[in-house]
């Protein structure tokens, strides 16, 4: 049923560090860095410092949740300078095919060679809900466009490059539990057919459900044609877990994990806000966070056992300092390095 996609696991396509780690068969680790809602470069440098040495590449979000932030490519330049490899994110919400291609030429020229292709959160959710969206192309078409820029050396219009073509390691998102659930493995197949080299999934908390999805993915042979990184993230509090279950489509958090988070704060339970001293609140937050990190480590250990999972993508949103203890706890340090510098 699915168009035959070339096996993308053989030749080095982009030469990025992330691609090398995956091709060498290491269990890859990517993390996430959210740019600030300002032009403050030091925020990026500080976050990059937390993440340095903990991961093989770091995603830099593109106006995440439709809130205006420093651009992914702009922040990526700072991340590169800090000695980390960025994964540029590009949504179809804010740019048409001209702007996307132009920005990607610039990004590649600046030394960025990983790209995550997304349709983008609808602007209704962000801080400019009266904006006009673009959606000239969608995420599948974006994947196809950048894969063809690299492999066929042509722009989307078919014109050939006069000079260096951008050679990105092409990533895509996967939402294993979003509706319609039965279509999700086929949607992954469609993105592989379009040219996706690697995937980063939505946050996984329900490991058995994810294992079921991966079984279908293996049946379709998609793990042989692309690298699948499972999305994980530390819970900050039981409230955050409940919020995500109720508000984020396609996110499953088992009750057992919410109970563990609640239990971690049991010492302070049953007290009203006024009864808790600032020290109490601090101690409770620390206890929750420690449990969140511990759960995340266990999730990585369980997910690692699933055949076809090539790595993890750690999303510690506005909590970049959590990445090191997670990666350390999951025995994924030190990260592999390669003799020659990446292209």
């Amino acid at each position, binding site marked *: 049923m699915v168009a035959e996609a070339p096996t993308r696991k053989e030749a080095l396509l982009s030469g990025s560090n992330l691609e090398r780690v995956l091709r060498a068969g290491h269990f890859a680790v990517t993390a996430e860095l959210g740019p600030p809602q300002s032009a403050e470069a030091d925020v990026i440098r500080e976050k990059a410092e937390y993440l340095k040495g903990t991961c093989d590449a770091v995603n830099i979000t593109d106006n995440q949740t439709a809130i205006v932030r420093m651009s992914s490519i702009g922040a990526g330049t700072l991340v590169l300078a800090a000695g980390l490899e960025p994964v540029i994110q590009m949504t179809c919400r804010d740019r048409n095919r001209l702007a996307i291609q132009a920005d990607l030429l610039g990004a590649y020229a600046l030394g960025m060679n990983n790209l995550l292709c997304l349709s*983008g959160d*609808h602007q209704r959710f962000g801080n400019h809900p009266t904006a006009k969206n673009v959606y000239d192309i969608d995420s599948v078409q974006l994947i196809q466009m950048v894969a063809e820029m690299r492999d066929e050396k042509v722009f*989307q219009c078919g014109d050939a490059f006069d000079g260096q073509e951008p050679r990105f390691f092409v990533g895509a998102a996967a939402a294993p539990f*979003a509706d*319609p659930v039965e279509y999700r493995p086929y949607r992954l197949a469609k993105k592989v057919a379009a040219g996706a080299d690697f995937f980063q999934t939505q946050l996984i908390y329900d490991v058995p459900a994810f294992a079921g999805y991966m079984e279908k993915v293996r049946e379709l042979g998609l793990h042989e044609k692309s690298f699948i990184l499972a999305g994980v993230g530390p819970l900050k509090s039981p409230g955050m877990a409940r919020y995500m279950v109720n508000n984020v489509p*396609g996110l499953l958090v088992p009750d057992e994990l919410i109970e563990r988070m609640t239990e971690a704060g049991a010492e302070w339970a049953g007290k009203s806000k006024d009864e808790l001293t600032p020290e109490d609140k601090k101690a409770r937050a620390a206890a929750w966070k420690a449990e969140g990190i511990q759960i995340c480590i266990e999730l990585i250990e369980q997910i690692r056992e699933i055949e076809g999972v090539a790595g993890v993508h750690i999303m510690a949103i506005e909590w970049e300092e959590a990445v090191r203890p997670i990666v350390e706890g999951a025995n994924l340090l030190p990260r592999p390095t390669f003799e020659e510098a990446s292209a």
Partner: protein
Amino acid sequence: MIVGEQKPLDEIKGLIGDAENVLVMGCGTCVTVCFAGGAREAATVATSLRMSTKLDGAPKQITEATVQRQCEWEYLEEVSAAVEGADAVVSLGCGVGVQAIAEKFTDAWVVPGLNTSFMGIPVEQGVWEERCAACGECVLGITAGICPIARCSKSLLNGPCGGSEDGHCEVDPETPCAWQLIHDRLNHMDRLEVLMNPQPPKNWKASRDGGPRRIVRDDLRRAAEQEE
């Protein structure tokens, strides 16, 4: 049909400004069917304007008229005298009607009494939903007769995105996810394979993005010339 919604009375009054003789003009086609700008609504708006301007202490001369189709010049002939005698015309037609009046009557000051909303369908009494975005290159043949351009919040050609839940779009829980509908209908027709291959980027040139659109039918033009 074209579906519209009446502007608030205060906004209409603002658009009329200090015009003394005002003609409220309804349209007998789409906006009549969606209860926004037909003869009945024209009468209501005219009455409301009369009462409201009277209460304001500056009563205006309000008249009303309704034509079968505001969007064709020949139907506007019958109201020429009324339009030319008015200081302002409040059109309760769609945006096409407003412009047809402005184009036909160079000296008429015409203002819209409606917001033209979309091309759609009544799904139940008092509820209309968008169905067509007039993109100029119909894709319904590959999407099981359900338009993702008009009905998906991101106009995706390779949907669904990850944002729908229980069959509803993340943008609005009242809006069905177009791609869930497409998926379910293709499944029902045993044609799910249509969803497996990437659809290429759309040619938006045929849409508004190519500039204002125009259709020329030479066969019809020639026939008209022969008649003359």
